[in-house]
């Protein structure tokens, strides 16, 4: 078949509309968040003092912060599915490194009691990673339906978005902050949750090249 014939054939074939694609993406993202949240509530349950916590500033700040992370990560995830949107992998890497340094410095300055948190840390990492497999699967579909032309930033976005959604879901159950100083507790919690991030990067590195192809 020559190119002219191919063009004639393609021009008569139906195309997916941008609007439908947008809503499909939105639906997949909402489903990812909803299913992860539901799974967290089903498997782990909600923390017993949730009603009280919802009236307390530190918990609301933690919730709002994680929600902000989720929204930011989802925005980046959507951006990386557009082939002509340039996202420099170097800049993403530098931002991640800067974030990690700030977080570590902040958490260390606030004084983490690692000894008392050891068991909680392990629990957090295991559950955040396990729950994160759900959004990871949904987001791979999001990437597949888009047109990722720059795989490295897509990999970071996939890992960050999955981690953020999973952390948000897990925080409804997590009571580790009860043992922490309310002033610096959120920073410490974020630091603990972020310890799961490298696992997400490894998972995304394994999954993305295999499944997010087009």
């Amino acid at each position, binding site marked *: *078949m*020559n*190119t*002219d014939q*191919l*063009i*004639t054939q*393609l*021009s*008569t*074939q139906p*195309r*997916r*509309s*941008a609007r*439908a*694609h947008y809503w499909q993406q939105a639906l997949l993202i909402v489903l990812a968040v909803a299913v992860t949240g539901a799974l967290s509530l089903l498997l782990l349950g909600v923390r017993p003092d949730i009603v009280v916590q919802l009236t307390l500033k530190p918990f609301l700040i933690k919730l709002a912060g994680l929600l902000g992370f989720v929204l930011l990560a989802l925005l980046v995830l959507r951006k990386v*599915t*557009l*082939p*002509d949107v340039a996202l420099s992998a170097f800049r993403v890497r530098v931002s991640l490194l800067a974030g990690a340094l700030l977080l570590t410095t902040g958490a260390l300055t606030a004084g983490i009691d690692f000894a008392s948190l050891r068991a909680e840390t392990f629990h957090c990492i295991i559950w955040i990673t396990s729950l994160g497999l759900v959004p990871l699967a949904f987001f791979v579909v999001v990437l597949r339906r*888009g*047109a*990722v*032309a720059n795989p490295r930033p897509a990999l970071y976005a996939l890992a960050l978005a999955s981690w953020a959604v999973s952390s948000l879901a897990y925080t409804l159950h997590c009571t580790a902050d009860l043992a922490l100083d309310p002033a610096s507790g959120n920073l410490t919690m974020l630091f603990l949750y972020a310890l799961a991030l490298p696992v997400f990067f490894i998972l995304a590195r394994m999954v993305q090249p295999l499944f997010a192809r*087009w």
Partner: protein
Amino acid sequence: MSVYPDSPPPDQFAAAAAGDTAAYAAILHWSAERLRRTLSRMVFAGSALEVEDLVQECLLAVHAKWHTYDTSRPYGPWLKAVARHKLTDALRRRRLHVPLEDIEQTLAADEQPEKSDLSPLLATLPDSQREAIRLTKLEELSVAQAAAQLGRSEGAIKVLVHRGLETLRRKVRAG
């Protein structure tokens, strides 16, 4: 709607969005022309047939991922990004599925290489490359043995074999 110079006329996008097949075909023709021109300039693109194959592959990708094009942005960069991705894929695939080893196997399997179809092609190679290929691939000497026989280093033999096989591959594909 695209109003950038590196794009087909804006009214074509509106018409294509409204289901006008002729307008969509015109955009694809414009894309094919642009891709052909870009690909022909690239070093790896061997024959005209190969360029046309790649153009078609890119057009299929353009069609499949049309929904990711935002008409408020320039079309040229979007097309280039899609094409770059497909080309990387195509090159990677070619390295996997049409590897140099294919030619190596063809050469090795040939009991009478001097009379094979590849003989005229081998004859077109520079002496050093032809000798390196003859010794390592046809006479099945080790790189060290070939290096000793030709009075060159092992690294030089590897480079000569690689370059020779590359040239042969291009010539075979060009027909």
